């Protein structure tokens, strides 16, 4: 599988490490009253969609950037790739 890196172009998936659901970027507020329940969901609960999935990939053998890759889990088709820093700064 080839991942279209936003800065470096198509790179082999072997250069990357997979970390799973991109919702990990949305860390709950530890000071909120329901923080314990929110962190329980954050740590243990994952969606497992058959279709489009936003996920984190780390370019370990490349520029060491984190990417948010939108991938179809049925076909492996990649429809969108962004730097995770850009996604995090945008707050989504």
């Amino acid at each position, binding site marked *: 599988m080839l991942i279209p890196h936003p800065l*470096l172009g198509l790179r082999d998936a072997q250069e990357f490490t997979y970390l799973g659901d991109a919702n990990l970027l949305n860390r709950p507020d530890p000071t909120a009253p329901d923080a314990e329940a929110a962190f329980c969901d954050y740590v243990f609960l994952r969606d497992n969609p058959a279709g489009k999935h936003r996920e984190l990939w780390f370019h370990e053998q490349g*520029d060491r950037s984190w990417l948010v890759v939108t991938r179809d889990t049925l076909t492996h088709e990649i429809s969108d790739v962004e730097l995770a820093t850009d996604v995090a700064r945008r707050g989504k």
Partner: protein
Amino acid sequence: MTDLTPITALGASAPRSQDFGAYTLRENSALALVSLAIARCATPPTPFGLTLPSAGCCTTHADYTAFWTSPDQWMITAENLGETDFAATVQNEVPDARLTEQTDGWVAFDITAETDGQIGAVLSRVANLPLIDLTPGKAVRTGFDHMSIFLVRRSERHVTVIVMRTLAVTLWHALETILQRLGDTK
């Protein structure tokens, strides 16, 4: 403590060099490296007259080379300054940049060829990348034999392979294996 003997990354008192037909593989123990980072979206400085390159590229000016390593971050290398405090030299040049001395963390191997086109044959065996990403003026970090390496394409007949210093012997062996095969089929 006065009788210490300096050795190269391959453990010898002098850098190793070996010919393989049209190719030469040479340990460059005199290469100085320092990483340079700037604040996000700050204007890149021009140390030693170098224009800091965009993603996937390298630039050279005199004995200095800069190659892109990640957003707002580059590696600066200098020939024959490996035994000096190169980080301090660069810091004088660009006082506002964030620098980290890298010379002792890496080893550089230069591969040179006799004619144009021969380096492409080596790179196609080293990197799982299209050769268009490895033309002269390009620099990438990629995986090779489970090692993370930098490839800096300095010219048509010259590429530098940089790997973390502890993997020096392993990388030399891997490159030697490729060059022996290519050298034999010259």
